[in-house]
């Protein structure tokens, strides 16, 4: 699945430790202990803004020379886990393995059971390395570890898989009630110990396009029925999501009217987007779903770059993107060449290159924001389109100011630092 693309020289991406940011907020009794290097610690500190809030519920167990030369992992990590338990009293600890333990073939996962026995605190082992996964797939690996601990069941229940905000969960709960479906369970919940039962009759509905690993795991280990459709972004995607869910329980429900109403609620922003063109640079793995709903909203999708495409899992999204060029793990230089040829009205890009693309004259929507804004469902659709429309409105408004004043917004480039003092 991770065939490396010959084209790829440079990728613009975060480390898959990044989802710790939203996961530790969601699971209020969790503690994330990352076994890795000083770089892992530096990344967490930088990406998650620990600078301002100095008592975070995550930390790095930094490997030292003894660890690198073969010291027993359990012996090394045990006092650290005990310290975390004593200071933070977590309900559960997520013990993350990173790149270096993978290289050294350290059995970090194997520490979970003995640590649990020693401390009495639940320990979920999860792989959070930054090799091939998109950064959002860190959540995928965490959820996979949690599914492994879900109690078995023979009931036909609904499990909504993926980290959502309370307001996004509420919509799903209310719709299920309206359709007469079982009350849905969620994973994750506010407690890391709150695990829904999962069994062969469970309908497992992933809400994020980056949860391939945990869905495959649930299918393999528990034989769940997988809710296979597009993801609940935009009125079109949400309609398919709920109709497919109803169908899994033998109910034919039409959400046509609901979809129409949801589009109507988005009219103001959709009017701004309609007829404009957009390209996605590779980043969050939300690219296929967002491109699909923006296309449904009347945008011209020029090209979609995305870190990983899974044939079956992403099949329904791809089917609705017919005719759009999709680039899996694109090379940065090749991507820039395509953008220069296409000149889209809007580019969705990672923070690494967002300013550079603005410097080249593109209008950029930074993609990271899309992973932590509540944009799922009919209810989140106005926010979703609002984020993109705001970029276009802002670009147009500031463009008018520059034009009226005949003042260019000169990008800061490297020659700026060669010039003598401007002060």
């Amino acid at each position, binding site marked *: 699945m991770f065939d490396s693309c010959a084209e790829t020289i440079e990728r613009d991406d975060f480390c898959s430790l990044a989802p710790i940011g939203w996961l530790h907020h969601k699971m209020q009794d969790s503690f994330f202990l990352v076994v890795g290097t000083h770089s892992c610690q530096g990344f967490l500190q930088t990406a998650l803004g620990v600078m301002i809030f100095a008592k975070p519920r995550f930390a790095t167990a930094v490997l030292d020379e003894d660890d690198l030369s073969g010291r027993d992992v359990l012996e090394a990590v045990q006092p650290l886990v005990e310290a975390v338990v004593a200071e933070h009293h977590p309900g559960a600890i997520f013990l993350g393995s990173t790149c270096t333990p993978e290289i050294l073939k350290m059995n970090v996962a194997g520490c979970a059971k003995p640590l649990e026995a020693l401390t009495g605190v639940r320990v979920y082992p999860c792989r959070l390395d930054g090799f091939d996964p998109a950064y959002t797939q860190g959540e995928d690996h965490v959820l996979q570890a949690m599914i492994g601990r879900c109690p078995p069941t023979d009931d036909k229940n609904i499990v909504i898989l993926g980290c959502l905000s309370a307001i996004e969960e509420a919509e799903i709960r209310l719709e299920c009630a309206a359709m007469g479906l079982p009350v849905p369970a969620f994973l994750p919940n506010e407690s890391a110990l709150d695990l829904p039962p999962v069994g062969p009759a469970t309908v497992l509905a992933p809400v994020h396009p980056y949860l391939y690993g945990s869905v495959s795991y649930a299918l393999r280990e528990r034989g769940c029925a997988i809710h296979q459709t597009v993801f609940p972004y935009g009125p079109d995607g949400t309609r398919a999501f709920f109709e497919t869910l109803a169908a899994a329980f033998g109910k034919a429900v039409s959400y046509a009217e609901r979809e129409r109403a949801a589009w109507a609620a988005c009219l103001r922003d959709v009017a701004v987007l309609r007829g404009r063109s957009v390209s996605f640079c590779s980043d969050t793995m939300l690219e296929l779903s967002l491109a699909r709903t923006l296309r449904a909203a009347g945008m011209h999708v020029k090209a979609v770059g995305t870190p990983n495409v899974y044939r079956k899992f992403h099949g329904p999204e791809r089917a609705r993107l017919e005719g759009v060029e999709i680039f899996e793990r694109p090379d940065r230089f090749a991507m820039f060449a395509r953008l220069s040829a296409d000149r889209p009205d809007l580019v969705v890009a990672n923070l690494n290159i967002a300013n550079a693309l603005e410097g080249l004259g593109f209008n950029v929507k930074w993609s990271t924001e899309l992973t932590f804004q509540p944009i799922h469902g009919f209810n989140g659709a106005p926010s979703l389109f609002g984020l993109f429309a705001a970029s276009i409105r802002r670009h147009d408004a500031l463009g008018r100011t520059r034009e009226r004043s005949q003042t260019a917004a000169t990008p800061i480039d*490297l020659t700026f630092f060669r*010039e003598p003092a401007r002060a």
Partner: protein
Amino acid sequence: MKLALWSYQAPAHIGVCKAAASFANIHAVLRAPKGDGYGTIMLAMFERLGVVPPISVCAMSEATLAGAAANIPAVLREIDARLHPEMLVVTRSATAAVLQEPLDGEIGMLAPGDIKAEIFMASAHPVRDNETSAFALTLKEIVAHFAQEVERTPRPSVNIFGPSLLGFHDHANLASLRRMLAALDIEVNLVAPLGAAPADLRHAGRAWANLSTAYELTAPVTAYLHERFGTPTLDALPFGEAGTTVFLRELCALLEIPSARIAHAARDAKLLWYARTVDAHALSGKRVGAFGTPTTAAGIARVLRDELDMHVEFVGTYVLAYGEWLRRQVADLTANVVLTDDFRTVAKLIDETRPDIMFGSQMERHSASTAGVPCAVISPPAHILNFPLGYAPFVGYDGANHIGDVVNQTQVLGLEHHLIETFGPRNQGRFAEAMPEGHDAPRPAAAAAPQPPAAGRPRPQQPAAIPAAGDLRWDPAAERLVSRIPFFVRKKARTNIEKYARENAIATVDERTVLAAREQVGG
């Protein structure tokens, strides 16, 4: 293994990349898993670069673990062909170092002339070096690599070492120094690493003297130039108004030029006069602590004592290798010199000594505000707030003025307590809700307020801050849902929901009302 929550210094490879990328026409190539390349994002964001940062990551993958070659020649060839740098500086992260890949061997297999740029393997050690030592070493190595035998400039000139990308107010510091040197008619021969191209580095030996903005970053390069060309380095630190005058007088002596024009350079300086005005009288005897890099801690502590008559309680640094240097610098200010790279030790010290004003990094600002102590940020590690659009130097006469403003503002406003109340851990983010009490809660400034026990138990639902108006009722589920909306938009959302409910003749707000209102009215 050692538990690490937060560090003053980044890993060594970030130091190498910072130094290398700061030069002009030099490109850093990092062999590492892609996540280790986060320095490029900091560079793009903090410096607000309108171009792709000159750092590339040759990413390790699953295939690498299975034995695939690093393929670093392909990366070097691509960058060479597209960006035409004069030099490619290759380094690796600790993770890559563990794998012990034969990068040299792979690079050695490039055909001669295949790549136009020079390829340079940085020698900083990915594990044993830290950000500071790796930066200092890389700066020295690159300058040494290019420097040629040259004649001294005909007129008095200096090299300025230290300013870099991702530095602490470095662009403004450099502007401040240039402005003074221009007033003294002293030529700037070279600034490095910021903006120095290989062509500039070739004539590094032409300067009459070397200046430094950060001793811990420049000691190796200035020692090297002294040994090779005999170029002297000015020891004085250009902090404060009096400090800057001493600095310039020593510089004039070193260059053997008259010092009469120093008064001209000092024409806008106001700090010493500010200190005489009644406004500043209250500063006398105020107890201060200074913690940061050796240079900033030493420089600021001296300004506070010598120029503002404050009492220096302690001075400290996290760059442990320069602890003794710092001790010598501040010997006449205080004997209490703290050497630690653990922010909790500094936090504890602030809490115990309770200075009237703390001077430190962004981390001390946080620690001090938790303890109810006002704090001014004067030292790296740099934070986005340390990249202001305006002119805010810390060195030279302009820097002295700015330090005066910083002291003044910190002293008068002392807003930290309110900020931590508003933006503290319990109020952040998308899931800003039901954070267990006594878990992450900041300690109240006034101390001794009893903490509720039962860590991990959710807080009981508080009644909403805004009372529901008159006829409208809220059912508990709807209250709960609204309590989950981030605090800074909660009030607006609530108003919108109630407006929507009244317009639609809804007597009791339930979850459906909340959802419908969000969709129709927004918020």
